């Protein structure tokens, strides 16, 4: 297994021998088996693998949404296992943005309010202006007052992307962002995601089983049954 270490950049995300095991009725099930990776600041990394390979689990652990069984995760230098859930929440609020397969917009808030939410939670008085400008950026200026159930899937995901960039998060975790969208819509959403990612110089971790989407990232990490089987830059992969 080859590991590509970033030459100059500091590691924004680093995992060392990460293990996640859960108790089931049939005994202990190990979902992740000693994953060690480095992701540099500003890098776009895709985690690929079949269903059940542990992609989303890895993403959840790296984002501090869940605790590991053993091993270490460093997020911008913070050792997550040393933080409790309250501290991890604060860290997420300061550092991390999310885009989910199922959009995860709050159904009782309008598109605008959904985007405003994380900005407001940070105590920013300019929440409304910032949210409006982001919605314009994702092309939804006409639909800001609509509720999620009044928007199409593509529109909902665009709202979610606007929300993810609203607080200028330094790391963006995207879990199957096109999983619920048709190919054409998915492709537009992905264009938008990468565009904004470049604009904001965000570190992107993207979970997908779509190889074409993965190829748009700088690196691809492939998981098979909880093990990291390959870690290669997309250029290398393309030239190989």
């Amino acid at each position, binding site marked *: 297994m080859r590991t590509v270490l970033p030459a100059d950049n500091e590691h924004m995300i680093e995992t060392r021998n990460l293990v996640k095991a859960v108790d089931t009725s049939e005994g202990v099930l190990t979902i992740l088996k000693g994953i060690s990776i480095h992701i540099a600041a500003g890098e776009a990394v895709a985690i690929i693998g079949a269903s059940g390979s542990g992609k989303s689990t890895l993403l959840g652990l790296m984002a501090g949404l*869940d605790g590991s069984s053993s091993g270490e995760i460093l997020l911008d*230098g913070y050792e997550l296992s040393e933080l409790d859930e309250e501290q991890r*929440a604060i860290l*997420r609020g300061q550092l991390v943005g999310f885009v989910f397969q199922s959009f*995860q917009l709050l159904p009782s808030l309008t598109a605008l309010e959904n985007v405003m939410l*994380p900005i407001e*939670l940070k*105590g920013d008085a300019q929440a409304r202006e910032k949210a409006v400008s982001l919605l314009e950026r994702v092309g939804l200026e006409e639909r800001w007052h609509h509720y999620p159930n009044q928007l199409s899937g593509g529109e909902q995901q665009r709202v979610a992307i606007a929300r993810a960039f609203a607080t200028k998060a330094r790391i963006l975790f995207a879990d199957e962002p096109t999983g619920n969208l048709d190919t054409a819509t998915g492709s537009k959403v992905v264009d938008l995601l990468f565009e904004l990612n470049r604009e904001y110089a965000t570190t992107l971790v993207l979970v997908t089983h779509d190889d074409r989407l993965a190829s748009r990232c700088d690196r691809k990490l492939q998981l098979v049954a909880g093990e990291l089987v390959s870690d290669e830059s997309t250029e290398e992969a393309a030239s190989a």
Partner: protein
Amino acid sequence: MNLLRKQLVPEASSKILTDNKPLGNLFNLSMRLLWRDWQGGELRLLFLALVMAVTSVTGIALFTDRLEKALLLESANMLAADRIVSGRGVLPEEVLEEGQARGLRTAEILSFTSMAFTDSGNMLVAAKAVTDGYPLRGDVIIAEEPFVRGRPVQNGPSPGEVWLESRALSALEIEVGDSIFVGEAELIVSQIIIAEPDRSGGSMMDSAGPRLMLHMDDVIATNVVQLGSRVSYRYLFAADEIGELDSFEEWFRAREEWRGRYYIRDIREESEEVREALERAESFLLLGSLFAVLLAGVAIALTAKRYSERHYDYVAILKTFGCTSSQISFIYLSIQIALAAIAVVVGWLLGWLVHWVILIFLESLLLISLPEPSIQPYVVGAMTAFICLLSFALPPLLALRETPPLRVLRKDMSQQKIGANVPYVFGILGTIFLVFWYSQDFVLTSVLVISVGAIALFLSIVSYLFLRSSGSAGMKAGSAWLLAMTAARRRRKQNVLQVMVFSITIMSLLILTLLRTDLIEEWQAQLPENTPNHFMMNITQNQIEGIESFFVENGIQGNQFYPLISARVTRVNGDLPDPGDEDQVTASRGTLTENAQLDDEIENLELEGVEIDSEIAEAVSGPQTDAPPVNGEEATTGGRRVRGQLSRRQVTWAEDLPSENLITEGAWWGSESQPGYVSIEQEYAEWLDLKLGDSLEFEVNQQIVSAEVSSFRSVRWDNMQPNFFIIFSPGTIDHIGATFLSTALMEREQKILLNDLIRLFPTMVIIEIDGLIEQIQTIIAQVTSAIELISILVLLSGALVLLACVNASLDERFHENAILRTLGAGKKLILTSLLIEFASIGFVAGLIATIGAEASVYYLQEEIFEQEFSLHYWVWIAGPLLGMLIIAGLGVNSTRKVVNISPLNVLRGVI
């Protein structure tokens, strides 16, 4: 490098891991969520449940607060005062002075019997001298003509005047304006008394003839009241502040030297029937409001649970944005407090409206004007909302803080840390607190909590077992049935909870209905329409026929004549009687004319040669101060107290068992009776430790008579009929000679006939209790209306719980049925299966509720309301049927949406 970074972590943490989310922003967010959830209908049921709790509690509290004050006031009218001090002989002046010094209003009453003379005749009257303040409560109704409706006044006659009862005028052949002699004083008859407030509160002397009321200043001039005269003094006290009365009463009771000689009392002690009616009504109202709050609490718990379940995703998302658990708690606490505050205000308004509507309904019945309510009901309403919220709603909402953020990736993750039963524990603790807070009664609280707990446990086991078996029962009954039963079985856990909630709701409603019906029926039975309202005593054997024909001629409803003779048990199986505990026999005995000083007042009372002693009063209305005195203790013998003997009893003999007497052991002699037998009241028998076949020796009119105990009887003491501890078989004591006692029902317009009756049978003594009966019937009617209206409020709370319970399962049903419809199931199939599922849940709930209700009513009636219990057969049909109809109706109505909206919308999560 890595080592270095690690070492930097603590420093970095302190720099950026400080949470700087302003509380104001969190509050704004929570208010926005509140508004959106409100618009989306998410909070409506929770809000409604809260409003319902506040409305019912505030409404009931406002109503009972005012009604209770009014009833007390009305009852005080029966005393003409709030407190009365009475006793043997002249009362200490000090009592009156103390009352006046404390700012109480006071008045004095002196009752005595006297002959009233005119030129054309004379008659024995029950004279009552009053001071200027009389009556302190209530009105004297007077008129210028006899036997008319009259007008209320708040004073007695002026000096030099007398007021007479209608029938006295015709007997004395005088009119208003004529003069009359009372003793040596000549007074002018200025008004006719139609009614006086404290007619029932007086002594036997007050019932011994028509009323003559005079001013206290004229008493000396009559020269009737002299040293050794039989008179009854009363001091009346009233105040607007109940606290002043209480502290005055405390002061009075602290005087050891007055104990046993002078008494202070309010209406509750004055009339057992009124006291019981008030206490039962209070217990019922208390129980009613408890049920209402409890049901609203269940509705709150159910809706809050559903609300919190629908908010798992919110919390997970908020957490991914960096919200900490305590911030989540802050957000949801703000939402709930704001919601509760609005609910409290709305509940107050509605509660006021409810009590106002009740008052409008009752306007014709409530003959009294209600005093303004205190602030207490509003405080109780608000506190109830917050306690309900704290105990029923907060636990599931606070559990939200434990929602793992990973839920944004994995839907199946929900809050893990808080135990599933924690909300119930809080709910139970909250309930116990509320019950105790309302009742202020530790015993009642423990009893209710333990029994409800036991019932809940029983219900959950039964409903679980029933639902477990229902799956196989439906296998052969077609697809809708099958669908319903498998659905019921699949949701077994939720359904057990649903059945439990439904059962407890229906049970509460049944309990209230049953208690209400039984209470009202018993009250009505106690004083039915044709209750005799006049007692006639001292009748001789040869007068009976004449009296009977007088009644027949004048259309008066007469009753059986009982021989009356004074007797005392002297030996039991040849030994001296050895009675048990003194209090046993009188413990639960209530009488209409009961008051503690009665026997003192009427000792040796000579009325035209007739001796009335305490035991005549007993025969009329039940035992008086009666623990039959113990050997060595003071005993009353014909009014004289003798040591070492059992007291005398008025006894009788009869061929037929008197009505409302039940043989509890042995057999009644019937028509072929033999002399030498005696039937004993069962508690009296227990007190003397008698057994069937015991041989008793009596002293009757200085003769010794023996009889064998052939039966024990239970006697209903509160029915205002002649009742006896001891009844002999005919022929046993007949030869000794007795006078007779009977009762009659005379309408108001027939009362003038009393004059003729007394003229025809001058030795007869008539005791009039018609005024008293009327007053009691009025109070009972008022209390009954209050009870009925509170039942309706509880019913509404119950309906809300049912609705909340059905709604709690809506989400899952929407989803399941959308899938079924997507798979091709028709609307009809789904609706039929829903109908069957709800109907069977309703049937089970109704059946269980019936069992629980009967058990609870049994307990409540036996222990709290002191009533006889009997099974209510109609409930066994009505309970399950009603459960089935209500739950099926509510369920199908609420879930009809399930089949009416597009499955796509459901599956897309629009609903």
